[in-house]
């Protein structure tokens, strides 16, 4: 039975900052968000109707029209395409008789593209009503569509056994595989949940906790690498009646999926890390911002949070520490890469569009609801538990001088063993290729750090992963020489940035698309030398965008021009300094048809 919208709104205390949650519930309930409901939401939350509309229309997974009884979102990442997405897509379209972006006339099935869903090691993959389907083949698509025809519930449509580890958990029951290939301090099974809260925190002051984290030299794992201890200290010292710890589990960088594995296998480690951060900073509330694509983990995680409350690892006087109150809630996103940017993530959590804020002020001074807020990556918060357990000095021994500790790498693409590898910083790309079972003679390029990172060639494979050399949030995509680098990778990544721009900055809203069109011109063998120069120049303008998304949106093209210039040069016309894109036959077709005359093209 349909839940009343009133109930949903009441569930969130008529709080307009919980608009995201309200919309998520309505979307999941109805399969779309009808106008009469948005009107009701606006009235009940006492905001204008356009406020509801502006948040709603921002996110990929909110729809103002029905998305079908079975809403199928097929991942469109570069690796999905490398692994056979096209055939899967064609099968979906042939069998349903509709094109992607549409719903079948009977309203049963909706087909939609979606940006990377964090399953790069088991592509092609799709979300069907929020459940994940991996390793899709045309055969599997037909099975799924047959099940849909039979009216099966989505949970009943799995044919394979459930995935490994906790993916089999009663509350997850998913075919997703963890593919953990190498373990270190974070992924190690040697961990007793709550041990730091019970044994360490009671004996330490918050300042001592911060000192220990500083000693470990750990830097943020999201990619930017800000020293964690320092961030906590800033927040601790900032004035504010309430403080917040955010865990950034938005993991939207195509090719990254390590946070999904942590959320599945080590969520307690993460929650303990947040409690530690809360203690150090003086925060009372923690929020895990989880990307929409991982909604299938929701019940499992909620259950663990309740378990932690029951065991006094969350709640009041945690670990017996008088006056230390801290609780955690989950905040789900609704499909927006930019929400991985910390201030956009905060905006989104406040029920707004995920537009990055202008900084300063930084979140540590003025974050969630205007209060001092720490935003840390999933992996950072997990690492901190081990730092406190074994000491900062112990942790600092891992890795390199400027990059201490370990890093979870999400490795995918052309290799035998895609999956998650926990390696010490300082690993070379070559080591990783060997470890993942890539045929080194055939690897033409590696994308380090996802689309916003760099595309490097074999002459740079001896470079090492660390903040001083190749900084990365953890995505590594291996591309062998069977691929057309510019079409399969660079164009796909550029399209990703076009799709995911929030549109707030004039630069990022427009230039990636202009670069995309120019790249297509070159790929179409119509390019001239000036086009390459233009791409380089236009890419520079993007650097003045507000946030990291905009600043790096040109990187797929810029780094490939830098490292694979010959691919561009061999496609351009060398004897021309100008090339029109004008095509007379195409341009006069419609008018000649309208007038009923045969085009004279001589």
């Amino acid at each position, binding site marked *: 039975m349909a839940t009343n919208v009133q109930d949903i709104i009441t569930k969130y205390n008529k709080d307009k900052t919980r608009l995201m949650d309200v919309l998520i519930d309505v979307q999941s309930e109805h399969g779309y968000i009808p106008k009469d409901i948005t009107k009701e939401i606006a009235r009940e939350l006492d905001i204008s109707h356009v406020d509801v*509309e502006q948040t709603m229309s921002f996110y990929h997974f909110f729809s103002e029209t029905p998305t079908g009884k079975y809403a199928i979102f097929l991942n469109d990442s570069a690796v999905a395409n490398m692994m056979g997405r096209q055939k899967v897509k064609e099968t979906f379209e042939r069998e349903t008789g509709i094109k992607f972006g549409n719903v079948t006339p009977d309203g049963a099935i909706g087909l939609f593209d979606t940006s990377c869903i964090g399953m790069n090691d088991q592509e092609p993959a799709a979300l069907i009503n929020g459940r994940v389907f991996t390793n899709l083949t045309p055969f599997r698509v037909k099975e799924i569509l047959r099940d849909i025809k039979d009216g099966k519930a989505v949970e009943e449509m799995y044919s394979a056994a459930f995935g490994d580890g906790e993916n089999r958990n009663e509350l997850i029951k998913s075919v997703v595989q963890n593919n953990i290939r190498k373990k270190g301090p974070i992924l190690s099974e040697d961990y007793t949940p709550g041990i730091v809260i019970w044994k360490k925190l009671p004996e330490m002051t918050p300042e001592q906790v911060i000192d220990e984290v500083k000693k470990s030299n750990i830097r943020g794992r999201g990619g930017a690498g800000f020293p964690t201890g320092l961030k906590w200290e800033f927040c601790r010292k900032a004035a504010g009646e309430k403080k917040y710890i955010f865990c950034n589990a938005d993991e939207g960088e195509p090719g990254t999926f390590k946070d999904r594995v942590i959320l599945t296998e080590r969520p307690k480690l993460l929650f303990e890390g947040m409690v530690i951060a809360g203690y150090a900073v003086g925060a009372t509330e923690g929020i895990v911002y989880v990307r929409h694509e991982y909604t299938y983990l929701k019940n499992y995680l909620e259950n663990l949070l309740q378990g932690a409350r029951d065991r006094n690892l969350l709640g009041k006087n945690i670990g017996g520490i008088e006056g230390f109150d801290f609780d955690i809630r989950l905040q789900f996103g609704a499909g927006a890469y930019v929400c991985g940017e910390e201030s956009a993530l905060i905006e989104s959590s406040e029920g707004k569009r995920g537009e990055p804020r202008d900084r*300063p002020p930084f979140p540590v001074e003025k974050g969630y609801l205007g209060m001092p807020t720490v935003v840390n990556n999933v992996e950072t918060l997990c690492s901190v538990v081990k730092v406190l357990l074994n000491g900062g000095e112990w942790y600092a021994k891992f890795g390199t001088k400027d990059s201490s500790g370990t890093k979870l790498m999400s490795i995918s693409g052309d290799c035998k063993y895609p999956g998650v590898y926990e390696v010490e910083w300082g690993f070379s790309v070559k080591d990783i290729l060997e470890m993942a079972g890539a045929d080194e003679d055939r690897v033409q390029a590696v994308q380090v750090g996802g689309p916003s990172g760099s595309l490097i060639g074999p002459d740079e494979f001896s470079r090492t992963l660390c903040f001083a050399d190749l900084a990365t949030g953890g995505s590594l995509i291996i591309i062998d020489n069977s691929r057309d680098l510019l079409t399969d990778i660079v164009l796909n990544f550029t399209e990703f940035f076009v799709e995911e721009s929030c*549109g707030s900055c004039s*630069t990022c809203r427009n*230039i990636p698309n202009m670069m995309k069109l120019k790249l297509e011109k070159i790929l179409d063998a119509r390019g001239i030398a000036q086009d390459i120069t233009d791409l380089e120049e236009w890419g520079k*303008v993007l650097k*003045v965008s507000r946030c990291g998304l905009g600043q790096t949106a040109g990187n797929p093209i810029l780094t490939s021009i830098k490292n694979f210039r010959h691919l561009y040069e061999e496609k351009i016309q060398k004897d021309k300094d100008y090339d029109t894109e004008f095509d007379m036959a195409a341009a006069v077709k419609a008018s000649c048809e309208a007038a009923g005359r045969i085009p004279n093209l001589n």
Partner: protein
Amino acid sequence: MSTLVKFKIDGVECMAERGTYIVEAARENGIYIPTLCNIRGVKPRGSCRICTVLVNSRPMSACTTPVTDGMEIINDTPEINDTRKSIIEVLFVEGNHFCPSCEKSGNCELQALAYRFQMMVPRFPYIFPNKTVDASNPKIIKDHNRCILCKRCIRAIKTDDGKNVFAFKKRGMKLEIIIDPELGDNFTDELAQKAVEICPVGAILPREKGYQIPIGKRKYDQVVIGSDIEKK
């Protein structure tokens, strides 16, 4: 205790109240930093990026960054100005800006900036997007062809109880400004007038009015935008 801070713009010693945004601080010191989405008295947003300056060699939006003691700001260099010109050109090709037929021509800030930077032709290809004119509101006309999505109307126009009348819809290249039908229909004359005035381009227009000032006498026909600040 003095709350003045000292900073430098292009090597020139300047002073301003602590916490003043760079754009305002520069203005007080007789230095013009080009802006477009910014408007005095309204919370800045840094969305057009035209006011980009280098602060301690990093690009920052001058309208949102407060000055601090000892800050070194670089504003007027060929590279920065070319970036600004690029952005103006981006805005021209993004929409359908046919100046000769526009009611705002001569008083338009986008056009005035293009004049200041002597834009002869945008370096980017024209997009000729399919945009609409929304004439459903009783007091104003919203021409999406000319909208540069600066967010001024969103930020500045609120109802008495603080509700948004304008808002963004969608994202990225599909981004557009929408007007709340209910709140928009109940616009007071003052608020409608304010919306028209606050729009830097000809995207929000009053109904049944236009072309009231002859060519040659409009705001930017003879006077360079920003020159009032530079003269000081």
